[in-house]
């Protein structure tokens, strides 16, 4: 009894609350009460229908404003949560709202919002969508509503299309008509995006357009081509591109638009406005992919002549390529037509027309139109197999025949190039049973032309012929075995005899393509011939060096298949071996290493290739280097080339590339062999082993530099391993490397040891052990650096830089201490300049260690992070430093800023601009140069602060155009040139931009920004025009031309 009473009184309290909420919202105009009401409904204090009852008075008021307010409360509540409504409630509410649509216009907006909320309801009863829309289309004139209410209507349609498609389709064409009427005249870009989305749904999801196809097309196509410049600081972020895409999706959405769209596009192609042309071509392309050939029938002639005109008389590459793409789409649309005995061959007829218009231009290879004609034909040929066949059958014989009849080189070259592009464009056959490709009928002729051109003496003919041959080889199954053999012979001959760099580059590239597809011919024919040449007796002659160089690079180019690698690498190793006896120069030994590295980087990662590198090549390289070192120590002196730094630096990438990408298990074995070789002097893994046992390699004090520098090879073996590959005896290795890097006197040796140490630290597992190692090293480094008389300070400094880098890359917390130490060294009397350069090392990718290729732990954005954490320190340090140390800070700063991505530079520059400008006056040319190179991109997209300091910028730059260093002169001239192009940043807020064309305003304010400096700049640029260096003059001419 008591409980019933409580419930009763609670209900009474709720309804009193409800009434007061309604009162305060409707009469008191307190919008927040809508939230409270919504909460009441959600918490179950009262239902929506009770709310309607409570609203009774306001809804029947004679004041339209009061009625509107009442409806608004209801709609607001529904917007908050309409999900929980029952079907019955929804039904009542819809009936109510539909009725209210007939009310005064001020009531309409909240009604629409309520209806929108109801369209989101899962409980929408069947039939209600239809009735809702019928009332909507009948009672509301959408375009006289405000922007937000129109958006309401569009969103209702979108919601209903998503959930009640079948019902809407039952409305038939009335739905389309209703929509067309609703959007007719829409002007707001946000609403247009919604309207285009609805229109796209209508055409794509197969709504019945009935007799309103043309109306729907008209109401959307009137916006084509979209011309829209968003207002400055547009909060809605709608771009022209979005609108273009949305409209294109509508227009190109259904083939039913064909009869209207084609004439429209043909008309727009005549336009002088480039963007309209481009849009028309892209829309055409999209539309054609949906069309049947029957849709295009009556417009083929018109389309072809427009497309042809765009390519023949094109004014921009963009438009040309869009036109060619559209032609390809058109041809493939026609190719989809099914050929039957009684229907006409649409594709055939079309291609006939194309051939008629273009083919005769191919007969005049001197004249301009040969190229556009060729491009048009290639675009058709690339569309389908059938088209390729037709075009090839007609064009290729004519071209090959002409090639043999013309005698002028330039004509022949043009013909060859056209041929090459045709071969490239040919679609290979899709059907498997039809295995003879398009080109097989012409194979003999094409090969004949290619081989004939390769035998010419003209370089450009040879280059083009090599490209043609490569394209022919790429057509699967085209070349016969005999052709390949002949091709290999031609390539070999050219490699050995042709001196022209362009020719040999083209030949080497072509050989690379062919060797990948036909390895056997190369392994058996080319490589033995090259080997013979490399080791021939004529090798002492000067001209022969060039031949050998080409052979070495060709060996690398053809080695992508393991079977070829098996043949080519022994040749390269033999070259290196003869370097040991002085038979080959240092330069050639380095080239041989480069070739080996290229092979390691490109060969397929198979077990065969892995064994070749890990079991043959790397042990052989280690052995050669060691033999050379020992020979030198015995002062027999013949292995001279192989103890040079250049050679060793070329060997390291061979080893590290193989370890990083070929066969991880084998790489692990290589690494552990290297560890025992260097720690214990265990030489058992080396071939041709005549070394003394227990070789000392990592003892800084005791061994000669020739031996100690080999530590860089250890680095190649252990620092490039994929992460997760276990390395034995790491602790021992680390402490020996630390010892060596801190005590050795030979620069290459201690630097390599420091790098190797850093490479290992970078990959070591996080934890106490690693922290201990770092603390120990840091203490040691500090000790050395603190004693200013120590002879080993440079060593300690080198280790500091490398370890800092290793830790910085992986975001290790201890890196900060090390980099701070580096900052403090900027004040150091001896190491200050080196410390400034150290920042460059810290920020840039090093080629041989600590990079992603070596699987190092490199976090993205580490540069930005370092910069943002440390830029303040630099500025402080700069301000506090004595005058003579300031350049170090400026140099460090420009080293850091230079490596940042431009986006970051632009955002961070304001804080640093004054410092950078200071750096321009710094007498150090290195600082000037690096500052200029980081200013250049910043000027190209200038922050406002740069524009405020324009005076200082211009002044300092002009002072440098007569600098004694030509690089500084060139770089400053480039900056001056960039200044002339300052885009309009400050004026973007101005309202005029809305009306005028953007480009015009940009030009005007470009003048406005820099015009005051024009006379002064032109005067200052006169002397560099007469600079003694041509490269400087070239920059000056460009800069002055822009001003």
């Amino acid at each position: 009894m008591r409980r019933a009473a409580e419930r009763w009184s609670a209900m009474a309290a709720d309804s009193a609350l409800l009434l007061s909420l309604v009162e305060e919202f409707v009469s008191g105009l307190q919008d927040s009460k809508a939230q409270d009401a919504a909460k009441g409904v959600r918490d179950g204090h009262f239902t929506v229908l009770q709310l309607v009852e409570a609203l009774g008075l306001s809804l029947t008021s004679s004041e339209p404003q009061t009625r509107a307010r009442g409806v608004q409360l209801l709609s607001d509540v529904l917007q908050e949560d309409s999900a929980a409504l029952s079907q019955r409630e929804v039904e009542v509410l819809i009936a109510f709202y539909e009725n209210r649509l007939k009310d005064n216009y001020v009531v309409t907006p909240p009604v629409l919002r309520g209806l929108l909320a109801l369209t989101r309801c899962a409980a929408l009863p069947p039939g209600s969508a239809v009735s809702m829309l019928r009332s909507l289309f009948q009672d509301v004139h959408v375009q006289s509503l405000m922007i937000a209410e129109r958006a309401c209507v569009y969103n209702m349609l979108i919601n209903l299309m998503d959930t009640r498609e079948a019902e809407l389709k039952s409305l038939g064409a009335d739905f389309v008509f209703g929509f067309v009427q609703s959007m007719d005249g829409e002007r707001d870009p946000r609403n247009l995006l919604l309207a285009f989305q609805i229109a796209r749904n209508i055409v794509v999801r197969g709504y019945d357009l009935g007799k309103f196809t043309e109306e729907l097309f008209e109401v959307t196509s009137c916006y084509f081509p979209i011309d829209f410049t968003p207002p400055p600081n547009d909060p809605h972020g709608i771009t022209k591109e979005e609108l273009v895409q949305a409209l294109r999706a509508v227009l190109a959405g259904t083939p039913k638009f064909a009869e209207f769209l084609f004439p429209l596009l043909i008309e727009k192609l005549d336009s002088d406005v480039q963007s309209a042309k481009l849009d028309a071509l892209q829309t055409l392309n999209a539309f054609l992919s949906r069309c049947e050939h029957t849709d295009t029938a009556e417009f083929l002639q018109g389309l072809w002549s427009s497309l042809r005109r765009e390519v023949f008389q094109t004014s921009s590459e963009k438009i040309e390529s869009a036109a060619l793409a559209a032609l390809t789409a058109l041809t493939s649309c026609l190719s989809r037509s099914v050929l039957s005995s009684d229907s006409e061959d649409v594709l055939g007829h079309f291609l006939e027309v194309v051939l008629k218009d273009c083919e005769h231009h191919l007969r005049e290879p001197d004249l301009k139109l040969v190229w556009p004609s060729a491009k048009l034909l290639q675009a058709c040929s690339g569309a389908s197999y059938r088209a390729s066949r037709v075009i090839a059958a007609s064009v290729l014989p004519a071209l090959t025949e002409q090639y043999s009849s013309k005698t002028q080189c330039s004509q022949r070259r043009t013909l060859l190039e056209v041929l090459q592009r045709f071969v490239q464009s040919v679609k290979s056959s899709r059907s498997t049973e039809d295995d003879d490709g398009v080109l097989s009928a012409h194979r003999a002729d094409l090969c004949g032309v290619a081989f004939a051109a390769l035998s010419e003496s003209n370089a450009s003919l040879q280059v083009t012929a090599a490209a043609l041959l490569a394209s022919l080889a790429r057509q699967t199954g085209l070349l016969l075995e005999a052709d390949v053999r002949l091709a290999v012979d031609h390539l070999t001959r050219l490699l050995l005899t042709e001196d022209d760099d362009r020719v040999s580059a083209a030949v080497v590239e072509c050989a690379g393509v062919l060797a990948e597809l036909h390895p056997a011919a190369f392994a058996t024919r080319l490589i033995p011939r090259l080997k013979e040449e490399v080791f021939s007796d004529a090798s002492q002659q000067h001209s022969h060096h060039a031949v050998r160089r080409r052979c070495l690079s060709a060996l690398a180019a053809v080695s992508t298949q393991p079977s070829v690698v098996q043949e080519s690498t022994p040749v390269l190793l033999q070259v290196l071996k003869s370097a040991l006896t002085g038979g080959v120069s240092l330069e050639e030994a380095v080239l041989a290493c480069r070739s080996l590295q290229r092979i390691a980087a490109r060969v397929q990662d198979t077990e065969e290739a892995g064994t070749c590198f890990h079991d043959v090549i790397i042990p052989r390289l280690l052995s050669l280097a060691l033999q050379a070192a020992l020979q030198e120590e015995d002062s027999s002196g013949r292995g001279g080339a192989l103890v040079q730094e250049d050679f060793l630096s070329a060997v390291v990438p061979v080893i590290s590339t193989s370890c990083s990408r070929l066969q991880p298990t084998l790489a692990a074995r290589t690494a552990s062999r290297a560890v025992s070789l260097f720690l214990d002097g265990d030489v058992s893994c080396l071939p041709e082993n005549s070394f003394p046992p227990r070789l000392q390699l990592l003892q800084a004090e005791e061994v000669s530099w020739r031996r100690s520098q080999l530590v860089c090879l250890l680095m190649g073996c252990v620092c490039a391993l994929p992460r997760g590959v276990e390395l034995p005896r790491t602790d021992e290795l680390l402490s020996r490397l630390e010892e060596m890097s801190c005590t050795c006197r030979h620069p290459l040796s201690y630097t390599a040891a420091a790098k190797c140490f850093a490479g290992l630290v970078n990959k070591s597992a996080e934890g106490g052990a690693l922290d201990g190692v770092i603390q120990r090293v840091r203490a040691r480094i500090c000790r050395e650096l603190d004693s200013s008389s120590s002879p080993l300070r440079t060593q300690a400094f080198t280790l500091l830089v490398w370890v800092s880098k290793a830790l910085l890359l992986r975001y290790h917390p201890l890196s900060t201490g090390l980099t701070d130490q580096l900052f403090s060294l900027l004040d150091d009397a001896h190491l200050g300049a080196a410390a400034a350069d150290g920042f460059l090392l810290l920020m840039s990718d090093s080629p041989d260690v600590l990079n992603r290729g070596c699987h190092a732990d490199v976090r993205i954005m580490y540069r930005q992070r370092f910069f943002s954490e440390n830029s303040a320190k630099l500025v402080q340090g700069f301000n506090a430093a004595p005058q003579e140390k300031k350049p170090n800070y400026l140099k460090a700063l420009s080293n850091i800023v230079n490596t940042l991505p431009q986006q970051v530079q632009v955002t961070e520059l304001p804080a640093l601009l004054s410092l950078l400008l200071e750096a321009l006056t710094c007498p150090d040319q290195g600082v000037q140069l690096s500052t200029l190179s980081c200013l250049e991109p910043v000027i190209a997209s200038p922050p406002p602060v740069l524009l405020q300091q324009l005076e200082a910028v211009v002044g300092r730059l002009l002072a440098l155009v007569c600098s004694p260093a030509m690089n500084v002169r060139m770089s400053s001239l480039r900056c001056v040139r960039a200044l002339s192009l300052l885009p309009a940043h400050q004026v973007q807020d101005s309202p005029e931009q809305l009306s005028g064309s953007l480009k015009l305003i940009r030009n005007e304010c470009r003048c406005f920004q820099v015009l005051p400096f024009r006379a002064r700049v032109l005067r200052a640029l006169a002397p560099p025009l007469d600079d003694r260096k041509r490269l400087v003059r070239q920059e000056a001419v460009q800069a002055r031309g822009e001003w």
Partner: protein
Amino acid sequence: PPAGGGKYSQLENANPVIFQRSGERQQTAAEEDEDVHDPIDDREIFDILYKTTQNDLLMLYFHPLSLEELNVVEQVRVQVNDADSTVSVEFTPTIPHCSMATLIGLSIKVKLLRSLPSRFKIDVHITPGTHASEAAVNKQLADKERVAAALENSSLLEVVNQCLTSRSL
């Protein structure tokens, strides 16, 4: 002045004979050496002009060919003497009645005036026997005052400047 901003229908020669490009100048080691003086040579002048001509306006007439490919300015016809500070450029219009001849000549002249040190005396003229009104055009181009006056005409200057805007930008 000749009509600016042409329609395609006004193309003077839709399918002209084209010539091979002579390729980029190869950079030599001497050019990178601080201590070597590089004199201004024919090729350099030619490059200045070559870079001139990839522009919007003339492109309507000649695209996708540059003046060089059209043989309007041939390398052999550029003669420079750095020591005497003289430059002489001969250009050949594509057809004898080319109405663009004056504009092309003027553009070449202005480009050289802007790009060469002021010590140079610049002579631009039509290759003898290649244009119907050769003498008149040459006279115009040689007359300092007329060139200056032509450049005072802001609409003409606009056209010339358009000709001289390099295409890369």
